[in-house]
């Protein structure tokens, strides 16, 4: 179970060697200078030595909710015993005897006669003479539980009493537990860079207080041909500290395929791993270790063999895949294998048959089954797609297959959005993670990819509730790419005809820097002015640490940006550069007061040909410098400086800002060639206006925003108190600072950080204006808020809500209760403000004011994060006077019957319903239903009824006064001219796929009334169509009613 505080989105990067050293001491010890391997050869410093008694250290396999396998090897026979328990000091349980399978090297097979042995009795295929492999199967474990373990030879303990020897069982499938897993591909070189990638992951996970739950390897873990000794040295000895407590789930790569055969399941690869063949950890039984599936909480994993099996739909693997997808009820599907269907890294998926077949044969099955994420390797590069679906053509085209061409970064364009559940063809992300250690290369630009990075690294995937987040960590520990998928509500896929596209490979592009550059908006300000003076060094390389804050640059020259020659636009001309040197170094000090201020900064640069930028010594951006730095920098392409500046975010170095001392922005700029005709480096720091967020992203279906998600509120946060009537409409807040919601400190998720609040004061005050255009909306106004610890809310000067405070206001507030805001940023408490309708005005601005209270000065955190919403889920009393637009008990077209769901698009105006039945509303059965059209066959047979009715609207002005009156049991969704306008008691999905029913309704004779004023733009002059689907929660329900009519409220 992952521990997710602070969030993986904390964007920490590792800059401290001390962290690495500390971790190694805790979990394992790399080889020392004098370590030798078992053959007496000097062990490289980046490999982990085996402990005495082991020829292969213990590692976990087949992790499940109630079982786990521990595997190890020795050079000679032993009496294997595993002792384990929940207390490190009290290993009170034992696994031995028949629960431990012993496998021996193949030469002992010569003694075996008769029919071939069962797979679990197979000997080792290849291994050093005398090798014994022990596979202990621990059973009867508790889910989501950590056990410590030790390996014994009889009574002799072989592993030390060390807390890193532990196993943690999976949660019960279907539970809400979070998951963090590590994805690595093409790593098995046994060289330093492979270990760097591993260590970067360990450091990152530790620094962010995370727990790794699983390890996924997408193949090529033992170069060059997957032999036993290569597995030992390039996999087990490289990842030992991780493998002892984290099960690795493998997919076979082509290099393992050099010695292992998927068709028959033998070879060193199959010797090394134990994976499910009988659906032991969920999924459907594959009957082979070549492909398999397993569950972790709400995630279903599918693993395929893309190397040496039939990939066609007639093949056993594809047929198993179909069956497995049919069966799973998980919330997420993650599939992984070796050969990428989309790549232009070291391999080309438009030319190579095995890659093409995975795309043409396997992808359609996965996508029709609802896959969310596909992970592969093989191509030695990191490539990550946009949200995509249905790209099976060769060559790959991106037209009409991209469903969202933004970056998917929750801190950038926002996460990708999918419908809840596993709807078919709703989009997925492809990640090629072939950058785990071996040499990298790139052939071109795959047009479905959003990120292409030629850097070593790995990927961490976090699944938490309705959000999946992937983070690429490079070998230095930097976050290089972040993407999220949020599954919520119903998201209809929109195929983009001409999606965003990278420049063709070989042409200059903003490649290889951490966050894609963009253009400056028109309304930016300047924090470090254009053409301001910088320290610079030209014609020489500086010493190490030149980019840090402690470096003394007093001997450097001073000049105004931009620097360069040859294109007549330079302020400081470097007249001696051509023919003599290619690099220029710049430094500039600047101040930032708060984290909030830092969030809005961006580096703007015009450059020719490339540069690397550092904030306080930490690399923050890199453009057109493909590798190296300083004298070793490699610039692949010539690039002309554009008239427009390109922007580079400080996001990945936000933790490196200093607020109590000057910051240093350092830039090394490079020309590709000493003979180049021009050069430009022209930086400044811009302040960008806050990015508008899409309000649908948090409350997609049932709510509508009144105040924005990222809106700035005025606030008063100080040891002092504001004037008594600070909440009144006419109070002047022009001198109050403004900050974006949410406010707070201490829990790492605050947007506007109240830095000095802790131990200084317990209260802060917030207010903003809002408008409501339609009086009908007064009754559906509500406050969604994350708060810690308590608050009082006012509208137009009157108190309307008090939570966690017994009495008093401001400094006189008493009886404050402790309350923690939900760790998840999207978890708000919702409070209706319908009772305050008499305070609201639709004529002008209204004021919402909130005072937030901490329980005491010692509190470690504080949060006030409010949003005003209109709740579209709530009904109102019927208006006193109204005119019926669609009369009560009018005749509607309807579909009701077992298996009789209408085709997609039935709610749209041009849908033909001539073959639908006609009946008077309402439709239903059971006691009290009072149905005009009785559905006597509905019970036990079907649970959804679809109804449609056309009506004319001659006076468009009436649209704002129209409302829908409905009697329903249990739920319904209503559409106006094809657009969903209302849903009640059902959170997600439509038709037969609707799910998450939120409340059982009792049949009533009274209609509930839903004003549609806010949907007035959905009405059209002339003929309109209203469509309603009525839902029973269960087919066995004793009653059902859906009954509706449409009215115009009379003044």
């Amino acid at each position, binding site marked *: 179970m992952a521990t997710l505080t602070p969030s993986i989105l904390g964007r920490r990067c590792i800059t401290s060697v001390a962290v690495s050293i500390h971790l190694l001491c805790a979990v394992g010890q790399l080889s020392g200078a004098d370590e030798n391997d078992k053959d007496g050869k000097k062990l490289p410093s980046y490999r982990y030595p085996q402990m005495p008694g082991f020829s292969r250290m213990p590692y976990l396999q087949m992790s499940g909710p109630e079982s786990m396998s521990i595997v190890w090897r020795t050079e000679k026979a032993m009496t294997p015993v595993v002792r384990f328990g929940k207390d490190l000091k009290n290993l009170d349980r034992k696994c031995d005897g028949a629960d431990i399978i012993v496998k021996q090297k193949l030469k002992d097979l010569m003694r075996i006669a008769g029919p071939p042995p069962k797979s679990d009795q197979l000997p080792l295929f290849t291994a050093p003479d005398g090798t014994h492999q022990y596979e202990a199967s621990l059973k009867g474990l508790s889910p989501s539980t950590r056990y410590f373990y030790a390996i014994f030879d009889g009574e002799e303990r072989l592993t030390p009493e060390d807390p890193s020897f532990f196993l943690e069982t999976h949660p019960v499938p279907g539970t809400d537990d979070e998951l963090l897993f590590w994805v690595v591909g093409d790593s098995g070189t046994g060289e330093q860079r492979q270990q760097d990638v591993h260590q970067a992951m360990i450091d990152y996970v530790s620094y962010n207080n995370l727990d790794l739950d699983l390890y996924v390897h997408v193949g090529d873990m033992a170069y060059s041909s997957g032999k036993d000794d290569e597995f030992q040295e390039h996999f087990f000895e490289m990842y030992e500290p991780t493998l002892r407590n984290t099960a690795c789930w493998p997919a076979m790569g082509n290099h393992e395929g050099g010695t292992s055969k998927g068709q028959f399941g033998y070879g060193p690869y199959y010797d090394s791993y134990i994976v499910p063949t009988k659906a032991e950890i969920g999924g459907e039984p594959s009957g082979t270790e070549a492909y398999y599936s397993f569950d972790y909480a709400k995630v279903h994993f599918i693993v395929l063999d893309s190397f040496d099996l039939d990939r066609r739909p007639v093949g056993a693997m594809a047929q198993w895949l179909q069956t497995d997808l049919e069966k799973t009820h998980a919330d997420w599907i993650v599939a992984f294998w070796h050969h990428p269907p989309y790549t232009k890294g070291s391999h080309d998926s438009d030319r190579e048959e095995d890659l093409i077949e995975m795309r043409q044969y396997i992808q359609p099955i996965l996508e029709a089954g609802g896959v969310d994420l596909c992970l592969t390797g093989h191509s030695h590069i990191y490539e990550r797609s946009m949200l995509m679906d249905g790209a*099976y053509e060769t060559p790959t085209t991106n037209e009409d297959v991209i469903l969202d061409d933004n970056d998917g970064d929750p801190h950038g364009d926002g996460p990708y959005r999918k419908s809840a559940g596993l709807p078919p063809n709703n989009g997925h992300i492809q990640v090629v993670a072939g950058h785990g250690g071996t040499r990298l290369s790139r052939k071109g630009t795959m047009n479905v990819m959003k990120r292409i990075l030629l850097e070593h690294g790995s990927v961490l995937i976090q699944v938490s509730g309705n959000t999946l987040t992937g983070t690429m960590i490079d070998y230095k520990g930097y976050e290089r790419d972040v993407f999220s998928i949020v599954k919520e509500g119903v998201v209809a896929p929109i195929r983009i005809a001409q999606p965003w596209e990278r420049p063709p490979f070989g042409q200059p592009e903003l490649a290889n820097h951490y966050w894609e550059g963009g253009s400056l908006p028109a309304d930016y300000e300047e924090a470090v002015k254009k053409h301001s003076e910088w320290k610079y060094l030209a014609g020489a390389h500086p010493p190490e640490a030149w980019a840090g804050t402690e470096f003394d640059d007093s001997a450097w020259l001073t000049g105004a940006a931009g620097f360069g020659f040859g294109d007549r636009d330079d302020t400081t001309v470097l007249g001696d550069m051509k023919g003599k040197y290619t690099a220029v170094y710049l430094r500039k000090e600047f101040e930032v007061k708060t984290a909030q201020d830092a969030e809005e900064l961006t580096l703007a640069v015009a450059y020719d040909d490339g540069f690397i930028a550092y904030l306080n010594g930490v690399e923050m951006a890199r453009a057109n410098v493909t590798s190296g730095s300083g004298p070793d920098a490699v610039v692949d392409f010539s690039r002309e400086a554009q008239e427009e500046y390109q922007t580079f975010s400080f996001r990945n170095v936000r933790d490196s800002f200093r607020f109590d001392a000057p910051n240093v922005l350092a830039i090394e700029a490079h020309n590709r060639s000493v003979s180049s005709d021009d050069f430009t480096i022209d930086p400044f720091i811009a302040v960008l206006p806050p990015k508008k967020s899409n309000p649908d992203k948090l409350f997609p279906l049932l709510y509508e925003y009144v105040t924005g998600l990222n809106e700035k509120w005025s606030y008063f946060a100080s040891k002092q108190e504001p004037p008594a009537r600070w909440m009144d409409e006419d109070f002047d807040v022009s001198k109050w600072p403004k900050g974006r919601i949410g406010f707070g400190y201490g829990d790492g998720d605050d947007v506007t950080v109240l830095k000095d609040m802790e131990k200084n004061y317990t209260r802060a005050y917030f207010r903003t204006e809002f408008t409501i255009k339609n009086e009908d909306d007064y009754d559906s106004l509500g406050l969604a808020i994350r708060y810690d610890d308590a608050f009082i809310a006012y509208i137009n000067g009157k108190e309307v809500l008090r939570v966690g405070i017994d009495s008093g206001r401001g400094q006189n507030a008493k009886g404050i209760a402790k309350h923690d805001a939900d760790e998840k940023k999207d978890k708000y408490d919702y409070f209706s403000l319908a009772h305050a309708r008499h305070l609201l005005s639709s004529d002008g601005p209204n004021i919402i004011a909130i005072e937030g209270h901490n329980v005491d000065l010692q509190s470690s955190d504080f949060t006030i994060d409010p949003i005003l919403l209109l709740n579209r889920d709530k009904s109102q009393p019927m208006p006193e006077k109204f005119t019926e637009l669609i009369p009560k008990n009018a005749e509607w077209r309807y579909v009701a019957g077992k298996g009789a769901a209408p*085709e997609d698009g039935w709610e749209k105006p041009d849908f033909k319903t001539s073959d639908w039945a006609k009946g008077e509303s309402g439709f239903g059965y059971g006691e009290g239903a009072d149905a005009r059209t009785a559905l006597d066959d509905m019970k036990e047979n079907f649970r959804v009824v679809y109804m449609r009715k056309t009506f004319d609207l001659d006076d468009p002005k009436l649209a704002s006064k129209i409302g829908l009156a409905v009697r329903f049991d249990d739920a319904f969704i209503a559409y106006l001219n094809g657009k969903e306008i209302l849903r009640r008691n059902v959170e997600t999905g439509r038709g037969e796929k609707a799910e998450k029913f939120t409340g059982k309704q009792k049949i009533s004779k009274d209609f509930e009334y839903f004003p549609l004023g806010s949907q007035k733009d959905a009405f059209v002059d002339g003929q309109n169509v209203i469509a309603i689907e009525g839902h029973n929660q269960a087919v066995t329900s004793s009653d059902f009613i859906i009954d509706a009519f449409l009215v115009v409220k009379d003044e």
Partner: protein
Amino acid sequence: MEPVKRVIRSLSIAALLVATAQVIYAHHGPGEMIAMFTQRMEADGATPVLLYKRAMEWRTLGEMDKATDDLRKSIELSPKFVDGIELLAEVYLAQGSLEKSQEVARTGLQVAQSAQESAAFQMVLARALEKSGKSAEALKTCNAAFDSFPRGNLDWYLIRGTLQQKLGHHAERVADFRRGYEETGSIVLRNSMVDAMIDAGRAEEILPVIDQQVDACRLKSSWLLRRARAKISLGNQAQAVDDLNMAVAELEKRIHPIHPDVTLVVDRGLARALLGNEEGAREDLERARELGVSPSMLHLLLQELSSADFDRKPDKSERS
């Protein structure tokens, strides 16, 4: 002793591969690999393994003629190079050179050093025979492969089952899939056994299993289709209609508007055929063919369309 021989041979190949280890280690796509292998051979002379490895890269690039050239040369240099012979038989099969594939597979049978290798050649031979229209001989060869190496593998079971279905050997098909399922636990063999039992007229026996799967599955269309077929075979045509309509409704939602999964198109075609919607079924048949469907996947659909007396079909009420 058979597996030992296999291992010894594999180890000897592995030893040969050591020479190319550094090349493989820097594996950078077929084009570069081919260039490197070519350079090695130009410098040091061709070896069976280098030719074999280069042929694999040619095959990856779809350059089948170049692959066969290299493989033939490889086998000339080492006539008992089993991996090379097996790959050549496969490449010929993929090219549609069925006679050559059979000839090479038979050569392989002469040099095979283990039961597993013999069985593998027999299966290539069986597939070539099947493509040549010699189903009975192909089935006989399949059975011989299983006799040689009873464990087989999952794809072999499916190949044999397809031949048995085509030849109407339903009882054997049921028995073989049952045996395979019991030995491997593979759900694919279990499903194939269910299909075989319906074809064998044992629908009543298997109906409880099908009902259970309809209830348990998130995506039900394939099991609704099986249940409909079972009910039709039991004479309950009216009951089959609901299942078929539900299957079609689910498939409509899952079939990609532009690039559908061919297996779903075939399923819908079969459901439509069983519902008496010949036009719709033929549309799906054509679409499946456009998508490059394997002929063996069309067996039931074609059978239904060719034997169709659409006036006797259970219902024509499928909503279009």
